[in-house]
């Protein structure tokens, strides 16, 4: 019995409703957070920052956002790339127009702008459902990318059509631009992601989250019970786009430093985030993180193993990597269709019973 939840009695409803009702879980999470905030910044270097930690945080944010929409509210969206672009371009315009504005506020404002766009593109969901909706959301993906390509105002008429993040500082230390130290960008993203992960958790465990899940599980019944579908769906689109917009802003300003709509926000991104939440676990905050970790770290890991250790030629390794990732995705889905988060839950249940089989 490695994992126990017995002996952990609740005496009030508020104790029962805590974020991590089980003491062991709570300690583990606090431990991880302490490590991430207090230890990692001292160990981090450029490689870890740019290849592992920032991508993970950025995609975790996007996955949180899409999970709210798809995992919790059941509306499959393939417009993520487009919404990330909105966040990135909003961030760029804000950074250039208000150089003095605090970067946290810039990112959050970029999220809010994306939320508004998200609501507009969410309107069809009132009528269209399932895969029809999923495909229809590609309209926003293609349209937004086209728009940011076409209208020079968005990229400040630069000759190249690229946007580049100018340097901005926080407490006198640069957070964007090439001079930003790795620990700074990392802490910036980590803070945002941590705060908004808790907010996401709060949202999904309360009234709003339940109305999303009701719509997801059975929309007609939900409406008859008293969940207004319009409000529920659009609020999901808004909140989800808010997160995705922030992740787009982070991707552009902190992680990459410059962006172009086709390369950085193409349809591949929409799919990537969708993979993350499915592999991680639909309707699970933890799953968003696990999925993001899986799909950002796995390729790096595979590459390092195949090229770094085995010394295989890069092209063979690249093709094999595709093949292996595909195989792993299928394997995990066969083992546990409900994602890594569910796998984790089942493992915990088993550990709790261990060493007895049932």
């Amino acid at each position: 019995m490695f994992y126990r939840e017995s002996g952990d009695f609740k005496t009030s409803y508020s104790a029962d409703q805590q974020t991590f009702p089980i003491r062991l879980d709570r300690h583990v999470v606090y431990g991880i957070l302490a490590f991430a905030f207090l230890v990692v910044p001292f160990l981090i270097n450029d490689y870890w920052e740019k290849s592992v930690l920032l991508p993970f945080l950025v995609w975790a944010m996007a996955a949180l956002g899409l999970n709210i929409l798809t995992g919790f509210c059941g509306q499959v969206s393939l417009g993520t790339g487009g919404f990330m672009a909105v966040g990135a371009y909003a961030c760029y315009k804000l950074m250039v127009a208000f150089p003095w504005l605090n970067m946290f506020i810039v990112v959050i404002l970029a999220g809010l702008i994306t939320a508004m766009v998200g609501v507009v593109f969410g309107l069809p969901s009132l009528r269209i459902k399932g895969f029809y909706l999923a495909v229809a959301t590609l309209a926003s993906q293609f349209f937004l990318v086209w728009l940011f390509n076409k209208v020079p105002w968005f990229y400040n008429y630069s000759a190249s059509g690229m946007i580049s993040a100018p340097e901005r500082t926080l407490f006198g230390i640069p957070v964007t631009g090439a001079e930003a130290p790795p620990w700074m960008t990392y802490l910036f993203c980590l803070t945002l992601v941590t705060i908004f992960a808790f907010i996401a958790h709060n949202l999904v465990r309360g009234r709003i989250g339940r109305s999303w899940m009701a719509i997801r599980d059975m929309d007609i019944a939900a409406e008859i019970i008293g969940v207004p579908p319009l409000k529920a769906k659009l609020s999901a689109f808004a909140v989800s786009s808010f997160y995705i917009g922030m992740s787009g802003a982070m991707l552009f300003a902190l992680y990459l430093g410059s962006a172009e709509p086709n390369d950085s926000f193409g349809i591949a991104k929409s799919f990537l985030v969708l993979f993350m939440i499915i592999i991680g676990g639909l309707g699970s905050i933890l799953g968003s993180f696990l999925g993001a970790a899986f799909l950002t770290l796995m390729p790096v890991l595979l590459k390092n193993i195949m090229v770094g250790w085995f010394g295989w030629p890069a092209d063979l390794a690249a093709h094999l990597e595709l093949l292996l990732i595909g195989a792993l995705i299928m394997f995990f889905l066969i083992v546990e269709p409900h994602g890594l988060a569910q796998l984790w839950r089942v493992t915990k249940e088993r550990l709790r019973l261990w060493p007895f089989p049932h």
Partner: protein
Amino acid sequence: MAELTQDGRKIGDILLEVKNITLAFGGVKALTNISFDIKEGEIRAIIGPNGAGKSSMLNVISGFYHPQQGEVWFRGQKRGPMRPYEVARQGIARTFQNIALFKGMSTLDNLMTGRITQMHTNILWQALWKGPAEREEIAHREKVERIIDFLGIQAIRKTPVGRLPYGLQKRVELGRALAAEAKLLLLDEPMAGMNLEEKEDMCRFILDVNEEFGTTIALIEHDMGVVMDLSDRVVVLDYGKKLADGTPNEVRNDPAVIEAYLGVGH
């Protein structure tokens, strides 16, 4: 105005009245010119053969189907065109014939969703959680816990409802409808798929709700024993038409009803 039943419950004014409802799907006439009323505090049964239009009637009342003709009056007012969730907000809760629980959620969350019409903190407070959102949550949790105790489903509080056996799902669904604290409760075959013992329990719950909270209940059920024992008045539908309407005894002895529905055994 109020009349008393034999066992002393108060039956009040007309709570809901449907007038001349006609509902057709393409060529299929599900309901033809149906009128009846439901009085405050009573248990009203709707019976009839399969495909008679009983569920459709409930769907009309809860605003999911929009009849081609006819009116629905609730609490003395004619109801305009309304979305189902607005109907729910007026105080009508229901269960479904084919269980319509939210499969991905736990029993507790399903019941809490039942209270959604009464919860109001805005999204910012929800995001913050501490403060109004948490207070509201706890207040409602207490009410829901009472229903959980009442239905005896404490043990499955945190179980995802998808894995529950059929009968328990039915019970959870009843709980979800009860959680709404509605004026009018519409139950579509709440006891299908239950054995005698469970039916007895279910009857107990329905009677208690009716007696303790004075909730008005409209009930569809095929088990005649239950219908005859529980209901104050029964309306009989037969392929879209109203066949009879009256007390259980009147209906039971109506030859048309025996012919169309009950069969000779009863």
